[in-house]
């Protein structure tokens, strides 16, 4: 079936004995839709099932009825969670951390990308490559040395970072800044040289060139980078689970897993509600800014 459908891309094959080209194409299209539907089902089952479960009471979940259907829909899980100060606190922590990380990231990445793409200086090319390599270093490699570093830092200075939510403000930029710098270098490089040369000749300083010309012109890139930074910080799981433990310091993903799962008792209705609400902010951003989201996603490999 792949065959038939691929045919569509470059239609007429050396005219087959049966049927017309048009009919061939029609069938290819039908097969495409058929398989796309199958894949869409596969890709959408978990979120849909989250939603179904979130509408059920514990009694209905443990009854041996069809789990794919809601017999007595109820919003009690949502009401309970949104009325629980603990859960709202997770939400608040996540929101504060993600928004602050976005701001920090942009403050570091935009000037750096501007300097690296426009103001060539000794070692700038090496540094640009280095930034890209940093982006490839996974957080799973660094969490143990960072953990120990923060402990030592506490001994030396008396400033406690471990088990405080603001430790995430320190470590999240290592995940977001390299990639954002990298894609901003790509966006800035695509701006015509004449533009900033004209500005400089007219007497603008480098800072003015950046703020007045580059930021407005590269705004689509900045939006894409912002979305990337926000979703990465919102979804990050390893650093918060390694560095924070007290309930009031947790962010959403870790909070749901550590507080809603009590021992072996899984209150699945609430867990699914919490997970769905936790997935909502990225999903909403994605729904409204899909093109920017995808631009940011593909920029890493297609630019540069």
């Amino acid at each position, binding site marked *: 079936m792949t065959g038939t*459908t*691929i045919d569509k891309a470059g239609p007429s094959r050396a005219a087959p004995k049966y049927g017309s080209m048009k009919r061939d194409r029609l069938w290819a299209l039908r097969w*495409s839709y058929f398989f796309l539907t199958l894949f869409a089902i596969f890709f959408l089952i978990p979120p849909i099932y989250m939603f179904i479960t979130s509408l059920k009471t514990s009694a209905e979940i443990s009854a041996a009825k069809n*789990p794919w259907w809601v017999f007595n829909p109820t919003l009690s899980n949502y009401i309970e969670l949104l009325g629980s100060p603990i859960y709202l606190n997770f939400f608040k922590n996540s929101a504060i951390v993600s928004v602050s990380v976005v701001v920090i990231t942009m403050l570091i990445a935009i000037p750096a990308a501007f300097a690296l793409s426009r*103001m060539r200086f000794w070692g700038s090319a090496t540094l640009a490559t280095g930034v890209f390599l940093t982006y*490839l270093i996974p957080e799973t490699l*660094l969490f143990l040395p960072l953990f120990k570093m923060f402990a030592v830092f506490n001994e030396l200075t008396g400033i406690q970072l471990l088990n405080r939510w603001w430790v995430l403000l320190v470590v999240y930029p290592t995940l977001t800044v390299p990639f954002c710098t990298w894609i901003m270098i790509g966006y800035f490089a*695509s701006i015509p040289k004449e533009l900033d040369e004209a500005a400089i000749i007219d007497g603008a300083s480098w800072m003015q060139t950046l703020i007045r010309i580059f930021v407005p012109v590269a705004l689509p890139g900045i939006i894409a980078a912002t979305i990337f930074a926000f979703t990465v910080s919102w979804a990050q799981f390893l650093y918060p689970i390694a560095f924070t433990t007290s309930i009031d310091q947790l962010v959403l993903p870790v909070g749901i897993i550590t507080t809603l799962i009590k021992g072996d008792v899984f209150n699945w209705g609430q867990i699914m509600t919490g997970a769905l609400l936790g997935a909502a902010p990225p999903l909403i951003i994605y729904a409204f800014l899909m093109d920017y989201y*995808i631009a940011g996603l593909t920029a890493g490999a297609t630019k540069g």
Partner: protein
Amino acid sequence: MVDATVNAAAQLRRVKQAPRSRLRRFFEKKSTIAFFMTLPLILLIFTLVIYPAFYAIYLTTLNKRMTGTAWMRNCSYLPDWICTYIPFGNLQFLLTRETFWMVFWQSCLFAISAVILKALIGFIVSHFVHNVPSKGQRKWRGMLLVPWVIPAAMSTLAWQWLFDPSYSAFNWILAQFDIERISWTGVAPWARFSVILVNIWIGAPFFMIMYLAALKSVPDQLYEAAEIDGANWWQRIWYVTLPMMRNIIAITALFSTIVTFANFDIVRILTAGGPLDKTHLFATWAFRLGIEGGDIPLGATVSLFMVPILAVAAAFILRDITRRGNEA
């Protein structure tokens, strides 16, 4: 690509003009400004990425309490001067443990099978999306990317619930067909399968998006020319699509190899490494030993085993990206 040559030409011109123009006088100041603009980035990378990376190497030489060096022990097969002076005690400990080798093979199995299947599914789905009229493409693309958008920790929870042995979803469907229920996360082969499946579910949409972007960049004329020469669909894929997409295919796969090999969220939430450590990856095992077990040096040693594979993948990515730059 044209841009690059134009830029290069502009630069050359500028270099030639340099002695006369005021850019020359400006140079000192410009490089200083540039340095200060990149300073936060440099500080961040050095203190929170490069320093910890080297600190990890130092940590591997320490003993569990981090009060002294972890010397090698009981190594009668080595000369004394190596045994008592080389601080590879943690390394020696790991290499002689069966669990370590199990984790090693599990990580490789997980990464290789997941990346190959993600690439395959991504390739196939991207062709289907490319086939439908462009009006509908947006809608399908939007739907199919959802797994990538949901935070991995949240969607893995949904999978955990779908895999629940007694109450739920998949086993209920199996029961309708009188098939015995499967302990999805309870026995080793199925647990490994589940973990890989979830990884594919999350990662395949990323491949789909990348390949779709690549497919759109293949000029139609190439397919037309291939058709006139009598190429069938398979030849068109093999001789036109694949060579044109080769770079993106490689970069995406290598990038995904790094992310998959270093994966933490899925295994941690779905199985926590169980049953009997049969699904642990390097990252989750390092977490178990280092954070939960309190033996940071040993955990750091485990996580450092990811470095060779990551370094090879990173080197290839860098090569491909610079090559792209040159092509362009």
